C-alpha cells in the first residue's frame, strides 16, 4: 500500500484564530482506496483541518498537494473541482429549497426533469424513499445527513471527508451510512473519517491519525488498540466514566411534570407526537429514547413551550402550562436544555458572562461566574470573551450553565451531549444525575441509548410519536437488547 502514490498530501498546515492556534503544522497524506481515521477531542483541530481541505478556511501557512500539484484551496468550489467533498457534522443543505434543488445546486445544473429521475433512481438504490420535491426543512436530521452524502456520491468524488457526520445517526442507519462509505473506499476512493469515537474509528479506519490541540500526536496502522489511541488523545490526563446509579430516592409522591395525551403536529400537520402521556416525580431521571425523528425533539420542544401542543395537557407541579409561553415556564422552574447550542443554547455575539447573566433570574457575581466556568471546564476561561469565539463543545458547556445556577424543579433535556467529546459528555450527564439526586425531576430525551442506560431510573422507548414501552428495572443494562429491538421493530 505504501508504494502507491498518495492522492492528497497535506504539508505543514498552520491555522490560527485570534490567539488560538487551531492547527500547528499538521502534515498527512491520504492514499486512494483507504479510509484515514482522524481522531481528537473537541477543539483538537479536526474540523478546522477538514474545512481547510475543503477550501472553507484558508491556511496561514502550509499547502496541499493534489496529484503532485501544490496548491491551497480558496473556496469549496476549487476543492470540489479536484474531486474533494466534505460531509460535515451538520448537514449543509439549504432548508428553504427542495431536495432536488439542493442537489442541482451542488451539481451546478438546473433542477431539470432528467436530474429528478436520476436522483430518484439513486435514492431508491440506496433504499431511501424521499420525495425529491419536498422542502429540505421538512426532512429529519437523518434524512438530511443522507441527502448530504448522496449528493456528494453522485459526483463521484475522489476524496470524501466525513466530519462526525455519522456520529449521531441511530445505529441501524449509521451502519448503512458507514457501509456506503466503505463501499466507496473499496471502489478506490479516499476517505478521511473524522470522529471522536474511538471504537467507531477502529471499526472504519485503515490508518489513524490523532490530533491534540492542533498537533499530530500519533499515527497508527490498522490493528492498533483502544488504549493506545486513548492515551494519544488525552495525553497524561486521566479520564473516567464511573457512573453509579444512585438508589431511587423519590421525595414526593406527586408528579413534578406530567404530560397527558399530548399531540403535537410537525410542519406539515402530521402528528409527530401522538398521544403521549408520562409523569416525572421529583428526584427521578427518566429517559425517553428512540431513533432520531420519532418525536423526541418535538416532545421536548412542546414541553419547553417552543412548539404548540395541539391537544392534551402539560402540568408543572399541578399547574397547567399547556399554552403558557416558554418564558413563563422557565420562570416557573422548568429548564430546557436544547440540542443545538448554536441556535437555542446560547446567544452568539454576547460574552460568556452575559449569557450566564441571562440564565440567572438574580444577580451574578464575578466569583460565581468564575466558579461556574471552572466547574464546566470552559476553555478559554475568560468570561468576557465572545461566545462565538469558543469551539462548539465549549459553547455547549456554556449553555449548561443554566443548570447550575439554581436547583430547577424540572429539567427537560434533548440530546444535550451531541457535539460533545467524551469528557464533556460525562460532565453533562453527571450534572443531570446530580440534579436528579438533589430533587429535580429530570426528563432526558435522547437518540443514544449508551449514554442514558447508566443513569436513568426509568426508560421509555419512543417510536413514531408514541411511547411504546417503559422499562423499569434496577439493571437497565441487561435490557439493552430488548430496548434496541423495541426501538427498531415496534
Amino acid at each position: 500500500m505504501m508504494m502507491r502514490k498518495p492522492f492528497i498530501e497535506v504539508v505543514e498546515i498552520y491555522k490560527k484564530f485570534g490567539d488560538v492556534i487551531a492547527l500547528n503544522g499538521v502534515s498527512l497524506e491520504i492514499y486512494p482506496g483507504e479510509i484515514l481515521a482522524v481522531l481528537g477531542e473537541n477543539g483538537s483541530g479536526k474540523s478546522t483541518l477538514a474545512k481547510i481541505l475543503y477550501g472553507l478556511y484558508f491556511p496561514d501557512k502550509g499547502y496541499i498537494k493534489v496529484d503532485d500539484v501544490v496548491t491551497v484551496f480558496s473556496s469549496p468550489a476549487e476543492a470540489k473541482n479536484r474531486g474533494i467533498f466534505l460531509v460535515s457534522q451538520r448537514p449543509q443543505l439549504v432548508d428553504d429549497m427542495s431536495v432536488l434543488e439542493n442537489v442541482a445546486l451542488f451539481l451546478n445544473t438546473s433542477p431539470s426533469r432528467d436530474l429528478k429521475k436520476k436522483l430518484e433512481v439513486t435514492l431508491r438504490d440506496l433504499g431511501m424513499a424521499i420525495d425529491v420535491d419536498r422542502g429540505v426543512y421538512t426532512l429529519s436530521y437523518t434524512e438530511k445527513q443522507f441527502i448530504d452524502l448522496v449528493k456528494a456520491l453522485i459526483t463521484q468524488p475522489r476524496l470524501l471527508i466525513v466530519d462526525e457526520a455519522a456520529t449521531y445517526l441511530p445505529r441501524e442507519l449509521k451502519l448503512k451510512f458507514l457501509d456506503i462509505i466503505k463501499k466507496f473506499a473499496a471502489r478506490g476512493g479516499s476517505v478521511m473519517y473524522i470522529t471522536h469515537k474511538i471504537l467507531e474509528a477502529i471499526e472504519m479506519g485503515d490508518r489513524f491519525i490523532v490530533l491534540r490541540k492542533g498537533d499530530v500526536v500519533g499515527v497508527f496502522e490498522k490493528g492498533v488498540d483502544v488504549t493506545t489511541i486513548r492515551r494519544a488523545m488525552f495525553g497524561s490526563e486521566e479520564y473516567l466514566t464511573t457512573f453509579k446509579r444512585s438508589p431511587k430516592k423519590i421525595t414526593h409522591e406527586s408528579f413534578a411534570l406530567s404530560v397527558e395525551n399530548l399531540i403535537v403536529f410537525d410542519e406539515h400537520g402530521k402528528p409527530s407526537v401522538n398521544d403521549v402521556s408520562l409523569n416525572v416525580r421529583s428526584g427521578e431521571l427518566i429517559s425517553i429514547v428512540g431513533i432520531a425523528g420519532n418525536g423526541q425533539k418535538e416532545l421536548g420542544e412542546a414541553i419547553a413551550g417552543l412548539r404548540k401542543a395541539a391537544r392534551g395537557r402539560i402540568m408543572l407541579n399541578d399547574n397547567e402550562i399547556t399554552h403558557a409561553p416558554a418564558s413563563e415556564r422557565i420562570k416557573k422552574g422548568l429548564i430546557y436544555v436544547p440540542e443545538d447550542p448554536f441556535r437555542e443554547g446560547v446567544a452568539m455575539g454576547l460574552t460568556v458572562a452575559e449569557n450566564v447573566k441571562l440564565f440567572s433570574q438574580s444577580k451574578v457575581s464575578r466569583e460565581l461566574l468564575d466558579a461556574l466556568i471552572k466547574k464546566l471546564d470552559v476553555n478559554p476561561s475568560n468570561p468576557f470573551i465572545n461566545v462565538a469565539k469558543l469551539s462548539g463543545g465549549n459553547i455547549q458547556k456554556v449553555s449548561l450553565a443554566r443548570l447550575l445556577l439554581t436547583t430547577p424543579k424540572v429539567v427537560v433535556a434533548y440530546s444535550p451531549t451531541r457535539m460533545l467529546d467524551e469528557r464533556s459528555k460525562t460532565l453533562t450527564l453527571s450534572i443531570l444525575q446530580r440534579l436528579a439526586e438533589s430533587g429535580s425531576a429530570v426528563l432526558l430525551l435522547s437518540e443514544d441509548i449508551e449514554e442514558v442506560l447508566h443513569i436513568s431510573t426509568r426508560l421509555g422507548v419512543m417510536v413514531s410519536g408514541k411511547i411504546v414501552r417503559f422499562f423499569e428495572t434496577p439493571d437497565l443494562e441487561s435490557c439493552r437488547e430488548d430496548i434496541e429491538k423495541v426501538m427498531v421493530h415496534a
Partner: protein
Amino acid sequence: MPKVAIVKRELSKIATALAKVLVILLGLLLAATLTSIATGNTLKLISITLFQSFTNLNVFVYISTLLPTAVGLSLAFSANAWNLGAEGQLVFGAIGATFIALFTPLGRQEIIAPIAALIFASFLGALWALPAALLKMFRGINEALTTLLMNFIAYYVANYLVKGPWRGRTVYGYPTTDMIPIESRIPTAPGYSFSWYVVVACIAIAVLLYLFLYRTRVGIALRALGSSIHFVELSGLSSKKLFLIAFLISGALAGFAGGVKILVYHKKLVEGPIVGGGYGFTSIMVSWLGGLNPLFVIPASYYTAALYILSFGLQIGSAAVGDALSSTIVGFLLALILLADFLTRYRIVIRFR
C-alpha cells in the same frame, strides 16, 4: 495562479481605533486634494473648510437629531427589530410636540412645556411604531416593509394637518401651523443654532441606553434576541415583549428627536418631508456606523454631523462646488469609513503557491 483570500485580523482595540482614525484622516486629505484639483480652489481653502467643519460647534444641531434616533435604532437593530420607520416616527414626534405646545394649556407653562412636549413627542413616536410591531407579532408581517411604508403615510398625515385642521391663523395661508408659544421653545446657544440642554440630554440618553443594553438583564436579552429567539425564551424572557420594547424605545427616541426639531429648530409644524428631512434614514446609517453600540454611535453621529456641515461649508466661498460635488465628497468619505472598517477587521492574503 496566485490564490487570494480574505482572512480575519485581530487588532487590539486601541490599534483598531487608531487605524480607523488614520484612514479617515488620510481620506480627508485625499478628498481635499481631489476637490481642489477638481474645482481649482486652493488646497488651503478646502483644508480650512474641512478643519472648520469638524470643529464647528454647530455639529450639535445635527447630533441632537441624529444621536437619539440612531441610538434608539441601534437598540432595535441589535434586537433584530428592523425598524426602518424612524423617519415617520420622527414626524409623529414633531406632531406630538406641536400638539402640546400649541393646543394645550401646558404650552404656556415655562419649563414644563418643553418637557411635556418632548414626553408626548416620544409617546407619539412610539405609538407610530406600534402598528408595525403588532403586525409583526400577531400576523408575522415583515416589519421592515410596514415601517418603510408608514414613513410616507406619516409625511402625508403631517401635510394634511398643516394644510387642514392645524393650518395657522397668522401664516397667510402657508402650509404651516402658527408658531409655538415662546414658553415652549428651547433657547439656542448664543451664536449657534443648537441647544445645550438638548445636547446634554442626547448624550445622557446614549449613555443610559448603553448601560441598559450592556448592564441590565433585559438589555442583554434584547441583544440576544438578535441571534436567537428561542434562546431568549428559554432564558425566561418573553421574546415578544422584548421585541415590543425594542420597537417602542426606538420609536420613542425618534419621536423625541422629532420633538426637538419642533421646539428648537422649526418652532412650528411644517410639512412632513421638511420635518423629516431624511434624518430618519441617515440615522439608520449612523447606528450602523456606530456598530449598533450606543456609545460608539456618539462619535458616529459626530462624524456624520460634521459631514453635513462640510457639505454646506464646501459650497461657501469656493468656486464650482455645488451640492453635487459636496455630496459626492461626503459619500466618498463615508465609503472610506467602510474601507477603514475592513482594513481593521480583515486582511487580504495573496499566496503564489
